[in-house]
């Protein structure tokens, strides 16, 4: 067990270092490690690899706050954090935003540990109950995402059509984003032009294009300059807000970890509404808790005896080489995740200081260009020119909510729409209609 936890800690350290690189998703790192292990160049026990991956995902769930806030390069689970995070950054409080998000993450980890003794009894039963209903639950989430946009605008434009456009453009943009990203998802899931030998990274160009590149484009166009960052010695939040934020975040994270396709961001967002959350600080705590419960909790579900639920890309990658069977392995995994998560939290405070120093000294435009270059290198390197083309199309879709004031989370249609269609048994009819099944 000690050896396994050491592997998890090693993963956390590696992830905390790598999380600095914008848009380098830890799933890509894990895939690279898998590739190396497959080639036989490095010999590693399947269980050790599983715990290394657990540490990687724990470290990443903590550490990905840094690029999300300081370099505005979020992944799909960080998308809600960027806006309040950038507010903090532009007030010189980027470090505080990282610390608040990390605080939520630590609370989220604590809840995962507290749930461990009952998980093996309750979760398999819960799965039995929910399994037949996943289709309509997903459609409900989609409906909620789309319907929770509301008409904006001042209603003071000179003509009726202009007033209508003012009010409805964000809703239409949201619908357009969801539909276009959904179509992209249908294409990628049914007939992806990405090479089959890297099929496990099929969706990566789309995610980078939908979520990461639009922020960078916005920053480049907006010519953002970041003020000098202050390293706070205390956090501007009361314990009550921490509890409220963490509660809603944990609920959202559990919701996301247990249901397919729903990410920590969506879970935290829905739970935030359910708990009437308004405060930015509590929101950051909630998003921190949601993403750690989503990433780490999602992988821990794979270790739960009698459940072995593969939720999320990391669980799928681990499952290709390792299957846990005993409660001891589950408890070891929980302990490993806790140790790795806490270590990653402490490291994120240190790396946030470093990031604060970097963004204060290096022009943000250069950082954004460098981030964009890294993104393109990763996408192009793994999936080739076709991946870059997919990324370009996804970027176009991801920019629609930016320019027309809709929620960027509508771009999650890339997963939500095809999976919801499949679960309701109509996915193949739609794909057939689109000519993707010939």
């Amino acid at each position: 067990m000690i050896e396994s936890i050491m592997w998890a800690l090693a993963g956390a350290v590696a992830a905390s270092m790598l999380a600095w690189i914008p848009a380098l998703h830890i799933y890509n790192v894990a895939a690279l490690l898998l590739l190396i292990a497959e080639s036989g160049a490095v010999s590693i026990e399947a269980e050790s690899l599983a715990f290394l991956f657990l540490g990687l995902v724990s470290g990443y769930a903590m550490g990905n706050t840094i690029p999300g806030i300081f370099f505005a390069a979020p992944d799909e689970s960080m998308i809600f954090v960027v806006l309040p995070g950038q507010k903090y950054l532009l007030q010189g409080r980027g470090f505080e935003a990282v610390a608040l998000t990390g605080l939520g993450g630590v609370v989220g980890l604590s809840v995962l540990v507290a749930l461990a003794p009952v998980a093996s009894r309750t979760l398999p039963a819960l799965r039995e109950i929910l399994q037949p209903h996943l289709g309509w639950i997903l459609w409900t989430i989609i409906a909620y995402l789309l319907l929770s946009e509301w008409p904006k605008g001042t209603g003071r434009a000179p003509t009726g059509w202009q007033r209508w456009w003012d009010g409805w453009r964000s809703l239409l943009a949201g619908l357009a984003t969801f539909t276009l990203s959904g179509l992209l998802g249908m294409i990628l899931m049914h007939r992806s032009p990405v090479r089959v030998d890297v099929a496990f990274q099929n969706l990566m160009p789309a995610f980078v294009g939908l979520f990461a590149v639009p922020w960078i484009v916005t920053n480049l166009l907006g010519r953002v300059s970041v003020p000098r960052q202050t390293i706070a010695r205390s956090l501007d939040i009361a314990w009550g807000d921490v509890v409220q934020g963490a509660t809603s975040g944990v609920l959202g994270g559990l919701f996301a970890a247990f249901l397919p396709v729903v990410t920590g961001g969506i879970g935290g967002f829905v739970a935030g509404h359910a708990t009437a959350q308004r405060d930015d600080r509590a929101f950051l705590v909630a998003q921190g808790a949601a993403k750690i419960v989503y990433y780490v909790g999602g992988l821990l579900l794979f270790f739960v005896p009698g459940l072995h639920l593969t939720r999320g890309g990391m669980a799928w990658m681990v499952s290709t080489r390792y299957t846990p069977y005993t409660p001891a392995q589950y408890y070891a995994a929980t302990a490993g995740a806790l140790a790795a998560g806490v270590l990653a939290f402490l490291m994120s405070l240190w790396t946030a200081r470093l990031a604060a120093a970097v963004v204060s000294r290096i022009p943000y435009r250069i950082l954004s260009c460098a981030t964009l270059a890294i993104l393109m290198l990763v996408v192009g390197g793994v999936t080739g020119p076709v991946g870059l083309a997919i990324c370009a199309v996804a970027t176009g879709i991801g920019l629609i909510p930016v320019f027309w004031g809709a929620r960027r989370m509508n771009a999650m249609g890339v997963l939500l729409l095809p999976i919801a269609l499949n679960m309701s048994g109509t996915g193949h009819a739609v794909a057939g209609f689109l000519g993707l099944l010939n």
Partner: protein
Amino acid sequence: MAPTRSSQADTLSTEDNAPTALVQAAPLAHCESCGRFIGPYSRCPYCGARTTGRLALRTVKWVAVSLATLGMVVLWWLARSVEIPTITVEEATRLMNFGYVRLNGRVVRSPTYDAESGYLGFWVADETGEVYISAYREVTEDLLTQNVVPAVGDKVTVAGTLRIRDDHIALTLNVPDHLTLERPEAVPLQAGDVTILDEGSRVRLVGEVRRVYEPYEGLTLITLADESGEVVVAVDEEVTTLTGSVPETGVGQALAIEGTVNLYHDTPQVVPASGDDITIVATPIATATLPALTLDRLSADLIGTKVGVHGRVVWLEGIKGGVKATLDDGTAQVTLLLWDDVHRALPAPEELDVGAEVEVTGKISIYEGELEIVPSKATDVTISVPAEAAPWVEISTLTPGDAGRLIRIRGVLGEPKGFSAGVKAPLDDGTGALDLLFWSSLYEDLTPTPHAGQQVEATGILNVFRDELELVPRSRYDWRVRSPDD
């Protein structure tokens, strides 16, 4: 000049949600001509100078919309023109997880089907390995409607999503049209001519049913014989559920069967693809008359061949599902395996015991390196000299040195007590007591069921367990409850 709404809309910075709302003034937020702060305006509201170097938001918006729509159309066209890659099982690596691929191969195991969930699964193999194909309810329903039901031996082309977990490679069939089956024409063959070399071939047989046996629920084995020999036909319940029932069959009935030759522990058997592959034939079938062989002439070369032998039973023991006798004809010894249905159908099963002389017709097989002769029906076994009943013994005369002896005792039964593998019951004959040990499979078969107070007679092999004597009956015929008339 006052700024206008339209000039604001031309440049990026004040859109909803844009993170630049709190941006510190960048150098280009000041007029290049008069140096005053002009924020996002493209024309200075103070001196009227037009700013340079700012990108029109309208242009960026058009680029974004073009990428999102025209780019999507191009991507859609590109995706439609992409051929599904065909790979071998060996080529499927973990990095292809979730890839959509096509495989060519042959169905190597009977499909499994869960009517409640609509889940259909079957194994396909090519020269490099095996892959598990699965289909969920909607796809399965479509397949059944189109009567596309895979069966052992079918040539298959299948496309779907790869799922690789541990060392298990699976492919999920998402589209019914992405499964195509090709069932080869059946080649007429005689039962005795079916060998392991025919594995994978689809054959047509006409013969007489020698035996119908259900080793476990869901599998029926039909022994089909013609003048050349016998072959076992394996009918899986899944096949009948998916394709329709098979005709009611009984011993002596003539059948025509089409199916694929498959191996079970190196013994060829024929697996029909559907219920329609088994039809009743009205014409009687001539079956083989076999010359008797001495036991020393039996060898592994005769595996699968039907032979006739005779000999004396020198040992008999119970096994799960039947009894196993050792035959000796003076030249060699061989195991005679009688499954329960054959053993019970003998005119006097209790006469087949140590000392009996028998003539047997059966198929040669091998189990754990030993040759066996396996009759398929009771008429294949003729007891020419019945065995004499084992002598009565008194329990007090038995010692551990008698272990391994076949003995017969009578007495009053005590309370039966279960253990993990069966039931033990004490038997007291007035001179002493020992335990009767019934293995589970035998205990469930005993009539009447043993209970305390019964006066019983029991035959069996004496055994010693933890220094205690116990008697192990071998079959239901080793157990008799005495009636008051005895």
